Structure formats: structure tokens, C-alpha cells
């Protein structure tokens, strides 16, 4: 086999193993106009700090230095309280726009970051057979991609959750995703890539996305987002939604949640950012908030008992968050397993009583019109809906502002948020003619 044949074979074999449903059933359904924003908190966010079980004395025993202070924690329902820095989350919760699903995660414990993230992104339990595509990818494979900006990762790469569709874009940041080529160069490159079966879909997607993003990048970023990559990504997601880009789903990575030491100081700014970014996102979206669902996951929760470094090691049960105008917020959805030794997973971690797939499935079924849920979550046993998500199969179109109006209205809005985080290099003096 020569190289060309080999690449052809890899392309065919890859497509077959990665996305059989894509081949068979691609594009059989139109998007219902709603937007799904999937945020993954990488590193395993500590659910017991994000949303602490203040009504359980064992929590305070296990966390002598890390337990939240019941006097400063933000009260939710008399039993749980939010971290005081998460005021943004508290506002959304009180307004009924944020639901918290506690003691959730992978049913089978998996305490490796990489294995647990992979399982959750592929939409399986820890020890199921591994499909080649992710749960978001399988959902998106059933949607007609009627815009180049249907499926977007606001990151340098497409996460595994979105794997399995050719048209998933990795945008990085909108203001950096522009093509610096003239039309002759662009068309010559496009012709060159047409000859490579593996790379052609990505090259075409990159070229057409760059065109489609031109009007979106004219829309300035909204105000009030916290500094940092999460704020930047959500500001970009808002521009895609407000600009009527055709966005169906966006994936965002928020890293830095692995706190084996000095957790209190490390988690505080992250929780503040998370809450503030979501609050700014809601304000920015305006009427479109009603058409948007945000789902926030992390690979597992952390151990109940703190370690000697004032941090926490890997645990099991964690927290999921769902936000948006059509979420039954203001409630904590938890079949609380308790913190007594016999109630813990492996005797030391919060147990999982809600399979994370139950939450994702309810979201897809109630708000995104998905019927074939077992195809998206192979091996999952459906349970009754918990009522986290309102049925909302059609988007509320009221108050939709056109992009052009928004550009005019928003002349005073802040400049591109992403520009603030660009890394720069101070170059050393290099005399001419040293090398080669």
C-alpha cells in the first residue's frame, strides 16, 4: 500500500470506527434553535467546597481547615451552602436560573483524571466499551449543520466530547481566528487539501469558518466578564449566539481545579470567576438566555477528608451545574447519600447517586428534542427525569436582536476580551549573523 492509499484507508477506517451514526443518520434533524454550552472543569472540582453540606456535622469533622464557615457560606436550602466567593452562582440560583446536581458523576468510581474525563466525554461509564466519538459529537451528528459555526470548541482543540463530526471547529478565540491569506492563496490551498482525504474536511471547515466569523468578530465582546480564559470563552459564546451564527453547541474547557494542596486559596478565585462569568453571560445574552442551556461537569469530586497539605486527593461523587432560562433552578437535585463511613464510596469519598448521564440525557431529551438517548449514552440505563429541565423544544424567538443592530448599540462595549490574555515574549538581543 502506498501512502496515498494508506491515508485513504485511514480516512475510511477512521470514519467508520469513529462515527457510524454520522454516516448512517447524519443531518436527519434540524436544530430546534436552542444553544447548548458545555463547560468542563478540568482537574476535578471539589463539590464539597463549591456546594457544601453544612447540615452534616461529619463534613466539619472531615474538613478541619477546609470546611466552609457556616456564617459566611451563602445559604441555599438550609442544608447546603455555596462558597462565599460564588456570589454569581448564588444570584443565578436565587433567580431560578441555576440548578445544582449533587452526589453526581460516574457510577463506577474512576480516580484517574484522564480516564474519568475520557469516560465522561465519551458518554460512557468508567468501564464500558469505548466508542470513538463523544456524546456531544453523537448528538451533533443528528443535526443538519446548516452553518459552518454549528459546533464550536472555544479552545485550541476539539474536546473528545465533540469528537466524531467533521464540522466541529476549534476556534481558540474569535478575534484570533482570522485567515491572513488573499483569495488566490486561499483557493490554491483549498485545492491542495482536497487531495488529502484525512485533512480535507478540517481544512475546508477552517477556511469556511474564517469567512463565517468575519461578521461575528465585528460584534464587540460584552462587558462584565471576569478576566481569564473562562470569561473570554463565554464572551465569545455570547457573540456567536447574539450574532445568529447558527451555533448549536459550544464546548469550553476551564482548567486548574486539581487542588491537592492549599485548596482554599486556589479554589476561591476560580469559583468567583465561574459565578461572575455565568452572571455576565446571562446579562450579555438578554432575551437569548431563554434559548440557552449551560451544563457544567467535572471528572469527579474530591475526597471527603482533607490531606495534610490543606488540599484534597481524588474522590468520587461531585457536582454538576445546569444554568439557563429554561432550567428549573433554585433547587439542589440530590439523593444525598450521607457522609457516614458506611455511606461513602470506598469508605472515604462521597458516593454517586445520580449518574451524570441521567442529567445530560434529560437535558437532551427535554430541551434539544433528542429521542435516541441510548445511542448517545451506550450502556446507560435510563431513570426517571428529575425535572431539572423545562420542556422547551422550540426556541423562544421573542426579542431576538439582529447582529447589525447590536453592533450599532454596542459601540461602547469593551474591546476584544481575548487580547488581554495573549502571552508575549520579551526577546533577547541576538546579534546578526550568529547562526547558521
Amino acid at each position, binding site marked *: 500500500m*502506498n*501512502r*496515498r492509499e*494508506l*491515508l485513504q484507508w*485511514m480516512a475510511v477506517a477512521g470514519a467508520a470506527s469513529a462515527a457510524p451514526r454520522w454516516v448512517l443518520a447524519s443531518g436527519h434533524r434540524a436544530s430546534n434553535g436552542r444553544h447548548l454550552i458545555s463547560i468542563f472543569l478540568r482537574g476535578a472540582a471539589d463539590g464539597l467546597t463549591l456546594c457544601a453540606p453544612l447540615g452534616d456535622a461529619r463534613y466539619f469533622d472531615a474538613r478541619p481547615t477546609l470546611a466552609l464557615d457556616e456564617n459566611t457560606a451563602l445559604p441555599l436550602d438550609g442544608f447546603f451552602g455555596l462558597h462565599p466567593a460564588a456570589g454569581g452562582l448564588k444570584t443565578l440560583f436565587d433567580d431560578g436560573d441555576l440548578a445544582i446536581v449533587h452526589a453526581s458523576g460516574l457510577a463506577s468510581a474512576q*480516580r*484517574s*483524571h*484522564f*480516564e474519568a474525563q475520557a469516560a465522561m466525554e465519551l458518554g460512557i461509564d468508567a468501564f464500558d466499551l469505548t466508542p470513538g466519538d463523544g456524546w456531544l459529537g453523537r448528538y451533533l451528528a443528528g443535526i443538519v449543520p446548516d452553518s459552518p459555526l454549528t459546533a464550536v*470548541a472555544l479552545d*485550541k*482543540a476539539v474536546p473528545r466530547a465533540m469528537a466524531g463530526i467533521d464540522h466541529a*471547529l*476549534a*476556534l*481558540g478565540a474569535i478575534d*484570533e*481566528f482570522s*485567515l*491572513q*491569506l488573499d483569495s*488566490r*492563496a486561499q483557493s*490554491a*490551498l483549498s*485545492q*491542495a*487539501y482536497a*487531495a488529502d482525504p*484525512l*485533512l480535507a474536511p*478540517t*481544512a475546508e471547515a*477552517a477556511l469556511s*469558518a474564517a469567512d463565517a466569523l468575519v461578521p461575528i468578530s465585528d460584534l464587540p465582546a460584552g462587558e462584565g466578564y471576569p478576566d481569564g480564559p473562562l470569561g473570554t470563552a463565554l464572551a465569545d459564546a455570547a457573540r456567536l449566539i447574539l450574532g445568529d451564527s447558527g451555533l448549536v453547541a459550544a464546548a469550553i474547557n476551564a*482548567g486548574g481545579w*486539581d487542588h*491537592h*494542596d492549599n485548596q482554599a486559596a486556589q479554589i476561591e478565585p476560580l469559583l468567583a470567576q465561574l459565578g461572575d462569568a455565568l452572571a455576565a453571560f446571562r446579562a450579555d445574552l438578554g432575551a437569548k438566555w431563554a434559548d440557552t442551556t449551560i451544563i457544567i461537569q467535572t471528572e469527579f469530586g474530591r475526597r471527603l477528608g482533607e*490531606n*495534610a*497539605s490543606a*488540599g484534597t*486527593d*481524588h474522590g468520587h461523587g461531585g457536582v454538576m451545574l445546569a444554568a439557563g432560562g429554561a432550567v428549573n433552578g433554585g433547587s439542589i437535585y440530590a439523593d444525598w447519600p450521607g457522609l457516614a463511613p458506611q455511606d461513602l464510596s*470506598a469508605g472515604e469519598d462521597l458516593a454517586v447517586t445520580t449518574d451524570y448521564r441521567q442529567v445530560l440525557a434529560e437535558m437532551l431529551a427535554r430541551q434539544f428534542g433528542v429521542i435516541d438517548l441510548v445511542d448517545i449514552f451506550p450502556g446507560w440505563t435510563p431513570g426517571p427525569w428529575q425535572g431539572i429541565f423545562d420542556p422547551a423544544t422550540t426556541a423562544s424567538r421573542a426579542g431576538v436582536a439582529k447582529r447589525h443592530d447590536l453592533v450599532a448599540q454596542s459601540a461602547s462595549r469593551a474591546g476584544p476580551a481575548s487580547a488581554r490574555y495573549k*502571552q508575549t*515574549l*520579551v*526577546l*533577547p*538581543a*541576538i546579534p*546578526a*549573523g*550568529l*547562526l*547558521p
Partner: protein
Amino acid sequence: MDASEFERLVRLADRITYGANRSLMQQVEALGYAGFVDQQLDHESIDDSELEGVLHAILPTLAMTPQELYDHVFEEQNFGAPQRDLLIATLIRRTFSPRQLFERMVEFWSDHFSVSATSLPVSLFKFTEDRDLIRQHAMGDFETLLQGDAASPAMLYYLDNFSNTAEGPNENYARELLELHTMGVDGGYTEGDIKEVARVFTGWSIRLPGEFLFRSFTHDWGTKQVFGQQILPTGFEEGRLVLSLLAGHPSTARHIVTKLARRFSADIPAERLVDDVTDAFVSSNGDIRETLRSLLLHPLVAESQAIKFKRPNEFASGLARALETELSQQSLSATFETLSSAGHLPFQWPAPDGYPDRREYWQSTNGLLVRFNSAAAWTEALAPQSEVLLQAAAIDGPLAQIDFLSASLRPQGLEPATRRRMLRYANTLDDAERPAALAAWLLSGPEAQWR
């Protein structure tokens, strides 16, 4: 030499270096593939004193002792110096070092023992770890690297082992040691083993300005059970013993060899290749040079096609090497900008598993867009200092320019259809813009993304 043999040589040279160019191909042609591999494996016999002299002249931190570096950073308040200078030295070495395979192995071990050198303490410790451990033993033996890494302040700090004590074990390092550095996630250890290994490493800590310190009073002096074997409480020696057991474990050999084979052959390496090279790893007691020799000369590598999608750093260094640019602020900042946009700056992957080494991750719209833009911007900006572009500009006529550029930038040759497309594009360009535009097209085109 016939064309297909020359093409094979280019392909293999491209794969084990940061990019084949005209001068490298002269060497490879003279030595043959096996001879070139031998030469590159014996890296100390290759003179890199000119490059190192230049680096030390422009980056005085490279020669500093840990104490001098510490003072430079904290007393003289050069807080960004360790991160910046190691980054610059690394980018320059990858592009310009004559010890190309050695630099690739430095990168391999930097990914394998990944630390995110984005905070001040980690970047300070990583600076000396790179110089005094990784670069010393990248071609040496695996156990030496493993033992050195476990005791390196960079890893002790990054994975929190410096605060792992008998009173409160911190499992972070123990878990990644087993999962990432040695046995692999399916290597056959349990959650219980992780806890016991964490106990073994209690007391392994750091003393400023950047040295290993064993704190016997925070060490857990109980007996431990690791993989069913009793570890008697001998203090510091327990950790040495466990690392030695891990270095010699069959799962470790397979895990390391699989990663090496993934780097140098295919995302999913052939089972037989991994079997054979694992034998070489085991029989040489983890000698990296012998393992590499077995891998790179194996028929499944030496005869294989270019099916590895280049990572962004391979693209970026390859671009600079193909254009034969000189070392300058422009070429350095071009490499930096490309890797920054592509998310592949050295030592900045945010998790302990190191930058991915699979096409699925790197083949993204952002990744290709960065390559399109970089090739266009570089060829234009670096035209005055690129030997290849200067020579191309002196040639008359599109056809002759195409032949010259393809022979220089893609020595493995062009498929006839590619050459026809190139000619069509050339006909749309005027004389002044043609050499740089055609070079950009070739270097950001599909063929140039595989190695």
C-alpha cells in the same frame, strides 16, 4: 541512489529530526539511514559547541548555579527569567541544534515527565531540572531519569509531594508516578498500591534554592505493601527501592516503548513493533539509546510511510529549517507566535500527562488555520534572511522556481498532480511575490503536515 530510496531517506530524516532540509539531506545521503541513526544516537560525538556558545552568550541564566539563579530571580527581581529563558533556549535548540534526535528525546522526556512551568516556583525548578536531569540523561537509562525526576524539585513541587507527610499523605505524585511515568493506567496496580506508594514517598521534599531534601521526621516509618511486596521502613531508601521496582516492571517497559513508538512511528503503533522493542528495553535494562536503536531501525519503522500528523512544534521548527533562516529575533518570535497560537509552547501543557501525541487532538481547524497563517507570514517576513527564498528569487520563470522550491522545501518530491496545482497557482502570482507565496503554499499544504 534511486528516487524511492531518496524519498525514504527524507521521510525518515523528517521523522526523527525537527525537519529535513538541504544540508541535513546531504549528511543523510552520505551516511545512509542506519548510519545517520547511529550518528544521532551518539549525540555527544556531534559538535554543538557553536550553538551552545551562542545560547550562553544571549542567555546568561543558562550557566547559573541554582543559588545564582535564585538570586537572579528573587534578589534582582527577574521573576520571568526562568520561564522565558528556558523557552527561548528550547525553541532555538530544536531548530538549530545539530543533535536533532537528542533534542527530540529531550522533548519526549519533557512530555513524559510533564510539569506546567507557568508559575514562578515550577518554572524556577524546571529550569535546572531541564539542564541537570533531562538533558543529562535523555539518551541514558530510564531508571536514572525516573530516580532523578522523583527527587527533582520541579516534580516534587508540581505534584505536591513536597508536602506529602506521614500525618497526611498526599497521593498526587504516587498516582501519576504509576499511571503516567511508569506502569500505565492498565499496568496492574490498585488504589491500595497508590496509597502505599504515597506513604513510601512521605518526607521527600525540597530545600531552597532548589535541592532535594529528605525530611525523616515527616516520613511514615511504618512497613508498606506495594504490589504485594513488603517494603521495610528504611526511610529514603524505600523510595529508591520502589522506583527501581517500577523501572524494572514489565508494564513500565511496555508503557514507555508504546509511547516512544507512538512518537516515532504511528499513533497506534503495530503490536509486533511494541513487542520487539519492549524486548530491547528489557534486555538492555532500560537503556534509552539501545531501545531507540531497536525502534528506529526496526523494519516496521524504517520502511513505514509518513502517517504521523506533525505536532505544531514540528511544523514550526520544520518551517524555519526548510527555509534555512538564520537565528534572529524575527525567526524566534515567529516560532513563538506560531506555537502560542497553536497551544504548543514548551512546558505549558496544563496537566501532568504532557502534550498529546495523537492526530485526533492536533488536527483541528485552529491548528490548520495557524499553519496557513504562519507559513504565509513567515515566508514574507523572513524572505530577506532565508537562503532558499533568496536563491529562488534569483531564478527566472515560474517553472524553474517551482522545480527549485520543491527540491529545496520538499526534497521527497511532489506528486505530479501537486506540481500541476502549484503551477496553476504560480501563474496567478507576479514575479515579486511568487517565491514566498509558493513556499508558503508548499509548507502549509497537506503533504508537509505529515512525517
